[in-house]
């Protein structure tokens, strides 16, 4: 009975279905993203749950796309999404959505390889999905995510990070067993599960009651106690097992089969011959096996085929859907695997391959290669594997391409099997050097550096391989990409020394070597090498790229060696060269390096920002908006932030994000925007950007973690969560390299500030261990920055000034005004108003705590307040106002001080009503502090008046309120506090 296949009710999952619906639709704010990853053992009902939830979401008005990942590891990039779109297209009735779907499918068909291809494709896909969704929430349902290809994985993270500007939810199922060991998704899930928008739901087996209910539903009556016990023991609550065992029980097969395996074996045995053939054919195919394809492979007349399929479905071995047939369960495949002779299986693959040769289908080339290989015909599999590799490269899926090229290589060296008719097939004829070249290049592009180098060695040994000089350059390129600087340097030097190298090749090698030396911090050598490269490039036409590269190396090395003017002049000339004769990429690159030089080591911020913005306009004209414009605008944003033009920075970053950038560029911009949000005190926006960064980084690129941690600490500080700030700093300290002086100095300052503020506001205990470690870091940074280049020292010193001042706060609880004054001066000199204003606030605080030079303190507070106000730095302004209120400093000329704003940590609101009217404003402040449980001494420290004066205030309060104890006074305060 084919109709009875899916009628078993969904038992014990009602809560999960409801929770998933809310997580994926109801609780998702407009424009936001959400994801649920469902893990569980096979048979626990993941697929069933996906279907149920998908239907509910569809009924609730969402557009649901459903795809399945394939376990032929060498599939095509983005296959699950393309399959989902095709399925949707088949079901659609609305013309508008249908044309959007076809438009998006066409994007894949028309994609061509090119620079920034992968990123641009992500952008096009997200725009396409936007049209498909047509204003509805979009839900992507993916089954068997453990087999997902790398391109799809990156797309998911990109969309979930909100970079596609799309309201999207993802519901994906993952087989728990697969996550053991070193599965790439493991790490992704560990990172994602920390985010608020993501849930990882582990689907447990059914409990005893639910097991009984499901079994009873299948059988049609409650099971006898003994049978129910047996069911529970055998199934362990796995609903798939329960269902199948219950069916056997109902059909009177009980006692025959102890395990699921036996259940399926018995069913396979019971099949009539044609149905048997059908099941074996589907097992050998790539699911879903289309009906027409199955017909060709089993060679049955239509009516017999349909009959056979019905039998297999009725025996619950096969399932049919619109797009084709699948085996009901993996176990079926395992049972069947032992039933066929190798020759029989090879024959099935041959029939698949022959049929597919004359017809196109999904994953055409990948499937052809798969079937020909298993049919024992490497010569015919090879061209298909190569075509599949090119197809993957066209969609920028270098990881998939690499796998196809590797398969092609191994096919090329497989001896052909003897054909069934006894004849020998044609020997494989292929250009091995070409295969090696492609395989090495694709390995290089997908980050398989060791493999790329090994392939290059094979190529070097091949007589038809490229000349030695070209090999050295490629080897050096691969080594540099792998971060293996020393051998890379040696390879470049070999090029420079080799006789068979052309002048152009030498110029290229010299320019790259200069860049490498610069990264290694060997500035003098980098400068010499860059000069040499420029000399070599001057002798050859069309070497603008080399000129730009070498000039950048020279410019930076001069800057580090303290001749900024010379460096700047070189870089400006390089820009001219690029504009006159270079490719658009050369122009973009020259602008980028010039802007980086100005805003980085030279710290000429305003000009750097101007150059970056001018460059952004120019590269947009040149058609390089997406990649280079976003990078230049990121530089401009960070420069504007530092010089204090936050509103302008906000506009620039928004413009850059409209390009929907991906990868490291996206992370850079999100961090820049987050830095602004933290400054503004916009917690929600900051959190969103931090989550987005974490989402992108879950896919790799852990080197960007440190700036994220620094921002997390900064944000936590404004929220009074000094414990969280401490955690972020500790993680940062344990993960940063000792030569990364600026990062360490920044972290140390954040850490010390967190401890000092924890101590001042009593949110958490000061951690003496943490303070000790931070002191050590400060000492180490001081020692190292003395030896670092001048630009590094310049930045590090400013942070060290802040560290010293924070330490003084920790040492005596008040802080040393001199040290804060020094910090303010350091930051003023660097033209960074934000930290300068912060330092002034602390300087004023320290002066007030000593009750000395109150007028100076007032002046400082007013100055800091003006800066903070003009930046829009809300939390900093608030803190300045709080302090001014406590010290009774008027911030605005001509007006009196505002009533003391609430202390942030405890947040008692200002008292408003009757009983407290009798008190003066100052007395109310004192009373608020009394109610917090502070001693007179502590209140004195907070309000900058002596302990004795507080005592006087307290006795006045007691008199006026007619109470005798602090507890009574506090009670009145709390009673009258406005809620």
């Amino acid at each position, binding site marked *: 009975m084919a109709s009875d296949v899916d009628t078993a009710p969904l038992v014990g999952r009602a809560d999960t279905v409801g929770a998933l619906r809310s997580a994926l639709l109801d609780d998702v704010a407009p424009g936001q993203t959400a994801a649920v990853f469902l893990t569980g053992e096979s048979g626990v009902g993941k697929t069933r749950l996906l279907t149920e939830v998908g239907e509910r979401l569809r009924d609730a008005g969402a557009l649901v796309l459903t795809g399945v990942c394939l376990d032929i590891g060498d599939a095509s990039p983005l296959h699950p999404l393309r399959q989902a779109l095709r399925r949707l297209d088949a079901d659609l009735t609305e013309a508008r959505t249908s044309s959007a779907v076809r438009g998006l499918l066409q994007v894949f068909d028309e994609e061509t390889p090119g620079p920034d291809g992968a990123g641009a494709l992500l952008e096009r896909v997200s725009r396409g999905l936007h049209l498909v969704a047509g204003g509805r929430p979009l839900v992507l349902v993916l089954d068997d995510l453990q087999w997902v290809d790398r391109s799809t994985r990156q797309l998911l993270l990109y969309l979930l990070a909100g970079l596609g500007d799309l309201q999207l939810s993802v519901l994906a199922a993952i087989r728990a067993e697969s996550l053991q060991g070193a599965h790439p998704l493991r790490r992704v899930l560990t990172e994602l599960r920390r985010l608020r928008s993501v849930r990882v739901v582990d689907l447990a087996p059914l409990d005893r009651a639910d097991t009984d209910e499901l079994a009873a539903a299948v059988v049609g009556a409650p099971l006898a106690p003994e049978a129910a016990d047996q069911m529970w023991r055998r199934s362990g609550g796995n609903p798939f097992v329960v269902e199948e065992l219950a069916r056997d029980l109902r059909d009177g097969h009980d006692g025959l089969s102890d395990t699921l395996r036996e259940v399926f074996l018995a069913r396979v045995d019971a099949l009539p011959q044609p149905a048997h053939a059908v099941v074996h054919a589907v097992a050998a195919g790539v699911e879903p096996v289309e009906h027409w394809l199955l017909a060709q492979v089993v060679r049955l007349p239509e009516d017999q085929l349909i009959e056979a399929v019905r039998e297999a479905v009725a025996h619950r071995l096969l399932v049919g859907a619109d797009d084709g047939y699948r085996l009901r369960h993996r176990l079926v495949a395992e049972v069947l695997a032992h039933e066929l002779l190798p020759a029989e299986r090879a024959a099935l693959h041959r029939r698949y391959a022959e049929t597919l040769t004359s017809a196109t289908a999904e994953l055409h080339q990948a499937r052809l290669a798969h079937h020909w290989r298993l049919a024992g015909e490497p010569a015919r599999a090879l061209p298909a594997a190569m075509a599949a590799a090119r197809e993957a490269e066209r969609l920028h899926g270098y990881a998939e391409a690499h796998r196809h090229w590797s398969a092609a290589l191994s096919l090329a060296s497989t001896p052909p099997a003897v054909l069934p008719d006894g004849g020998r097939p044609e020997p494989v004829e292929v250009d091995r050097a070409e295969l090696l070249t492609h395989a090495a290049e694709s390995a290089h592009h997908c980050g398989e550096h060791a493999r790329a180098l090994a392939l290059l060695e094979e190529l070097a040994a091949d007589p038809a391989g490229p000349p030695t000089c070209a090999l050295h350059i490629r080897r050096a390129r691969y080594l540099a990409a792998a971060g293996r600087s020393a051998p890379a340097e040696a390879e470049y030097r070999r090029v420079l020394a080799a006789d068979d190298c052309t002048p152009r090749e030498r110029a290229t090698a010299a320019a790259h070597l200069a860049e490498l030396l610069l990264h290694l911090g060997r500035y003098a050598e980098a400068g010499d090498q860059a000069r040499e490269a420029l000399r070599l490039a001057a002798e050859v036409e069309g070497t603008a790229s080399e000129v730009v590269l070498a000039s950048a190396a020279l410019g930076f090395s001069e800057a580090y060696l303290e001749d900024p003017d010379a460096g700047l002049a070189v870089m400006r000339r390089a820009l001219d060269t690029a504009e006159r004769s270079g490719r658009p990429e050369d122009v973009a690159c020259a602008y980028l390096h010039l802007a980086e030089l100005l805003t980085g080591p030279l710290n000429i911020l305003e000009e750097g920002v101007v150059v970056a913005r001018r460059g952004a306009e120019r590269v947009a004209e040149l058609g390089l908006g997406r990649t280079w414009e976003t990078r230049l605008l990121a530089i401009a944003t960070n420069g504007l932030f530092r010089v204090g033009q936050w509103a302008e920075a906000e506009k620039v970053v928004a413009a850059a994000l409209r390009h929907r950038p991906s990868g490291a560029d996206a992370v850079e911009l999100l961090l820049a925007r987050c830095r602004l949000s933290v400054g503004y005190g916009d917690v929600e926006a900051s959190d969103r950007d931090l989550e987005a960064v974490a989402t992108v980084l879950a896919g*790799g690129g852990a080197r960007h973690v440190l700036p994220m941690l620094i921002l997390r600490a900064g944000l936590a500080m404004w929220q009074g969560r000094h414990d969280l700030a401490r955690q972020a700093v500790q993680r940062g300290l344990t993960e940063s390299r000792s030569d990364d002086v600026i990062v360490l100095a920044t972290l140390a300052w954040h850490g010390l500030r967190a401890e000092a503020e924890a101590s001042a506001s009593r949110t958490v205990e000061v951690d003496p261990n943490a303070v000790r470690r931070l002191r050590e870091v400060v000492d180490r940074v001081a020692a190292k920055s003395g030896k670092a280049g001048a630009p590094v020292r310049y930045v590090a010193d400013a942070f060290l000034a802040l560290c010293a001042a924070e330490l003084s706060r920790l040492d005596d609880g008040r802080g040393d005004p001199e040290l804060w004054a020094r910090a303010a001066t350091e930051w003023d000199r660097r033209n960074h108003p934000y930290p300068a204003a912060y330092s002034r606030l602390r300087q004023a605080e320290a002066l007030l705590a000593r009750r000395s030079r109150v007028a100076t303190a007032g002046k400082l507070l007013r100055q800091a307040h003006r800066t903070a106000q003009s930046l829009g730095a809300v939390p900093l302004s608030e803190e300045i106002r709080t302090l001014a209120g406590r010290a009774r400093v008027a911030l605005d000329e001509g007006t009196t001080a505002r009533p003391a704003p609430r202390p942030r940590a405890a947040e008692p609101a200002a008292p408003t009503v009757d009983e407290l009217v009798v008190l003066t404003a100052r007395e109310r402040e004192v009373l608020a502090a009394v109610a917090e449980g502070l001693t007179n001494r502590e209140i004195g420290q907070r309000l900058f008046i002596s302990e004795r004066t507080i005592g006087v205030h307290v006795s006045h309060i007691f008199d006026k309120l007619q109470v005798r104890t602090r507890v009574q006074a506090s009670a009145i305060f709390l009673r009258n506090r406005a809620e």
Partner: protein
Amino acid sequence: MTEPVWGPVHQDIVGLLADHPADVPAVVDHLTKLQDLLVRLPPLEESCPLADFNKLYLVITSTVLDGLYDDRFTDPAFLARLDVEFAARYFDALRFWTDSHPSTPKAWSCLFQRMRGPDARPLPSAAAGVNAHINYDLPFALVTTFDSLESEPVDASDQHHDYLEINKIFAERIPELRRGYLDHWQLMIDMVNGDIDDWYQGELVEYTRNVAWRNAQKIWRCRHDPEARECERMRLDDNAALLGRLLLSPLGAFLQ
């Protein structure tokens, strides 16, 4: 229903394992809390074999943390990630065991089974844990770490250098830990034997850790092939389980 896996501290352990530590300080914190719970586990309490391992692991990880703070490693980002990934696998095994899940690695379950007795000597218990953790978990932790850092396991790299540095931590820590286990009688034997046993134990860890590095390189090469990867995983699990059972057998008592 049957008694919960962790007896009276079940809820505490479930609560602890619900959290996934993200950095090395958090891992140390986790191991510390776990230690406090394990020694309260009847019937063995203080002599819980898993606590013997956990204590050793805590000491090693704390030393790694100090090393990270004190600038001991060349690539701290790598080592910190590795440490977190490494620990995650131990916590995973505990989570599987808590759920009585069939996926609990065999390498671990042979030690977990002994938590209810019979009593095992502390040194073989700790060694069985080290065996499971290094022979089974470490290669996978290495692969995942390199994957997430977009780097590769290359001999003589900075990362390899840092990885080998951990051997020194083992060598530094094991002699004192080893003495910590000894009662008077054994202390006498130790005095007679000098440091030979310490040397032997240190060598064992170093040897095993190099095997783990090689295994990681092997898995690295087939990490995109689900079938080959699973095959490799089962091989490692079987081997580690075999050695683990040996260590916990009466034969293992000779170690002590």
